[in-house]
């Protein structure tokens, strides 16, 4: 008894020590109902030019900083960071629109795109951008013989030609409403030979240095064609774990960090605030449609009815999240099918009935393979295991490391179910939807629907934009109806920001734009 009370006392002391700095000081965004609207600006203040900040990231940046390799293979962290260094002919805005960047102007005539090079625009190394650089960059991405830099969306390019010193024409096989979104691909200098380790672009920040697993440093590019960045210098510091990052935030060693858990966001030091926005992913319990009994649509629907999405949001983010009902995240507002949210309401009775109908009145065993490095997905899987137990499905979790997940689940397709978030790489619905075409190489769930394949082909052939959007919505309907996977949500991205900083903006893409971030007086 005595020993027990001593233990309790020790535990209490530890709680006091560890929780010493807690208390809800989350500035602007706290206690918002679901789904939270992206809150971009901080409290007002007088803008200051200059200053240096440290941005914390808890994931390594990987092999190469080559922007074209990045599109094909890069980690989300790389895209997030190098969004500040590179620009394409066009670039995305926080509203999800495409505006001219390296190109000053462009016209689209069917399958022919004509770009006018921006007058006086320079690379970070001081060289002027020429039409030859544009031709080089597009050709490099369209070259299917180079595995790592090939961008599959460019396989339709039939002609890249410099018409004069300021005009480039790109022709593709057939008119395509979405092709412009792919032209956000970086324009890089043709003469430069070490894109992997000393990247040169045209963006508001120029690359200074990168020490693997340590840091990546950017400085403001003084000759930027547009509104120059406010900050002089940005250091991305790479942390070994989310805990180490949280600790550094506490110590004031980091000025800005995203992808935080709600607990970290709500326990920030007093001189910090946090904002919330979408992560732009489709988080789902992805089901291997080729493995029995998951090859039976009734079983997949039963799982969809059995899962309680609100409970997952409650546990992960205090009830916050962006609900989805199919394979497109809400950031792509113009194609996102809102009507499919809640397509399968939480209904255990119906789930049991469907299982009985499918000849599984006693449920079945299900292994959910989850990459152990993505803690939110692991927690989600744990909640789902409990929810499935309520309808008689005996689910268990197989935790694997990332490389194993990539080999076994993503490319090997040797799995039953997995929880993961598929991120948007660009502003097209195609990127999110084409992978579920039955013969697509990335169709990891083996989704097989002749109807889906036909509608997708029709959407690609559609010459009318409204018609294309209608077809993309139809594709989302098919995914929902067929219960291709159990669609959960787009998660909330909690971003911690130093109280002296303003101007952080969310994009409908997985990027971190630092050009608008600045200090304020006071």
């Amino acid at each position, binding site marked *: 008894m005595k020993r027990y009370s001593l233990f309790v006392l020790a535990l209490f002391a530890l709680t006091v020590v560890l929780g010493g700095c807690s208390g809800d000081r989350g500035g602007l965004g706290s206690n918002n109902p679901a789904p939270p609207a992206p809150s971009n600006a901080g409290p007002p203040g007088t803008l200051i030019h200059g200053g240096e900040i440290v941005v914390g990231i808890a994931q390594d940046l990987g092999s190469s900083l080559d922007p074209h390799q990045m599109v094909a293979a890069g980690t989300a962290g790389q895209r997030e960071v190098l969004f500040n260094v590179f620009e394409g002919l066009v670039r995305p805005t926080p509203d999800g629109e495409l505006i001219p960047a390296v190109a000053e102007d462009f016209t689209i005539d069917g399958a022919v795109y004509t770009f006018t090079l921006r007058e006086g625009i320079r690379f970070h190394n001081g060289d002027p951008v020429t039409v030859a650089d544009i031709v080089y960059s597009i050709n490099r991405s369209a070259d299917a013989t180079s595995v790592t830099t090939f961008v599959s969306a460019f396989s339709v390019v039939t002609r890249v030609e410099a018409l004069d010193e300021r005009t480039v024409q790109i022709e593709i096989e057939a008119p395509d409403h979405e092709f412009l979104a792919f032209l956000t691909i970086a324009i890089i200098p043709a003469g430069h030979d070490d894109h992997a*380790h000393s990247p040169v672009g045209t963006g508001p920040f120029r690359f200074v240095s990168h020490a693997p697993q340590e840091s990546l440093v950017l400085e403001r590019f003084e000759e930027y064609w547009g509104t120059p960045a406010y900050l002089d210098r940005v250091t991305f510091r790479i942390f070994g774990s989310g805990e180490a990052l949280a600790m550094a935030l506490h110590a004031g060693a980091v000025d800005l960090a995203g992808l935080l858990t709600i607990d970290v966001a709500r326990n920030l030091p007093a001189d910090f605030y946090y904002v919330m926005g979408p992560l732009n992913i489709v988080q789902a319990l992805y089901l291997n449609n080729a493995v029995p009994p998951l090859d039976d649509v009734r079983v997949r629907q039963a799982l969809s009815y059995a899962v309680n999405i609100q409970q997952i949001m409650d546990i992960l983010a205090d009830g916050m999240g962006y609900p989805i009902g199919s394979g497109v995240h809400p950031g792509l507002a113009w194609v996102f099918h809102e009507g499919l949210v809640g397509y399968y309401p939480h209904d255990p009775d119906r789930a049991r009935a469907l299982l009985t109908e499918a000849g599984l009145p006693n449920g079945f065993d299900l292994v959910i393979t989850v990459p152990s490095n993505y803690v939110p997905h692991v927690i989600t899987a744990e909640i789902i295991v409990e929810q499935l137990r309520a309808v008689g499905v005996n689910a268990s979790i197989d935790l694997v490391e990332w490389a194993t997940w990539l080999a076994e689940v*993503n490319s090997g397709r040797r799995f039953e179910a997995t929880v993961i978030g598929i991120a948007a790489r660009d502003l097209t619905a195609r990127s999110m939807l084409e992978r579920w075409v039955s013969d697509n190489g990335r169709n990891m769930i083996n989704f097989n629907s002749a109807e889906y394949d036909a509608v997708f082909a029709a959407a690609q052939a559609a010459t009318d934009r409204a018609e294309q959007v209608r077809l993309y919505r139809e594709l989302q309907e098919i995914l929902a109806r067929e219960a291709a996977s159990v669609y959960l949500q787009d998660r909330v991205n909690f971003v911690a920001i130093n109280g002296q900083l303003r101007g952080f903006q969310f994009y409908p893409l997985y990027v971190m734009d630092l050009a608008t971030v600045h200090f304020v007086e006071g």
Partner: protein
Amino acid sequence: MRYILRKLITLLVTLFLISLLAFLAFAIIPGDPAVTLLGVNATPEAILALRQEMGLDRPVFVRYVEWLGDMIFGDMGRSFAHGHSVRELLGDRLIVTGSLMGLSFVMMLGIALPVGLLTAGRQRGIVHWMVTIINQMMMAVPPLFLGLMLTFVFGAVFRVFTPSAFVSFRESVGGYLFYMLFPALAIALPKSAMMVRLIRSSVREEMGKDYVRTAVSRGCAPRGVLYRHVLPNIAAPVITFSALTLIMMITDSIVVEQVFSIPGAGRILISAIGTRDYPVVQALVLVIAALVMTLHALADVLCRLVDRRITL
């Protein structure tokens, strides 16, 4: 001389076997560098082509022999995950991890030797109990947790140092050593507790022996007996234990590097295993194995020097 030759041959054979085993392990476990490099959006065609480009489509033994051949001529290869040559990638990191181990070791000796020797004579009373209790607590705390506590207390509460603001020794040696003080402490404290315990129990055992009784009955003062007769006799176990501790510090520093975000060899080892970056893993495995064996041999030689009863 024969001893050194024998050890050298054992070292080479062991290194060969270890490198072979590590290579085979990578062939057996799921995942490969090409798949990892291409990530979530990999298509089967791209994986196939990249595997070909990286030479991963050839049989594992062919690749091993090729790697071994390069290694013998001092070429450690190129990291798949970082694109840099392994030599370039590991150079500074080995210095960081090596100095972390060295600092921890010096700190451990600095704590354990005085505490152990000064309190060794007292085997009862208040000092004895305090040392025993604190020791027991220190031994029970793993470096990982101690590291987190140290960062929290000195980093977040007192703000003595800035967690994660690692200073490279190339920038400032002073700043580097100051930053490394806390991770070294996290490693050194539990180890010094073990060392104190070893010293105290060895002294106690030795003090009960006949020669001590003889010396005391001859009229030597108990303190003199302790320092002149007992200490040389417990030197051998202390040296052996020190070598073992230094070896254990390799694994400790791998853990502590994650907590303090130190870009050392441990951190790159973990990530290289994660990305199946086998040139990096192979090189590190070899370095670690060679280090372990050298330390063992060094401890043997040192023991022989301080204690003539030991033969090699």
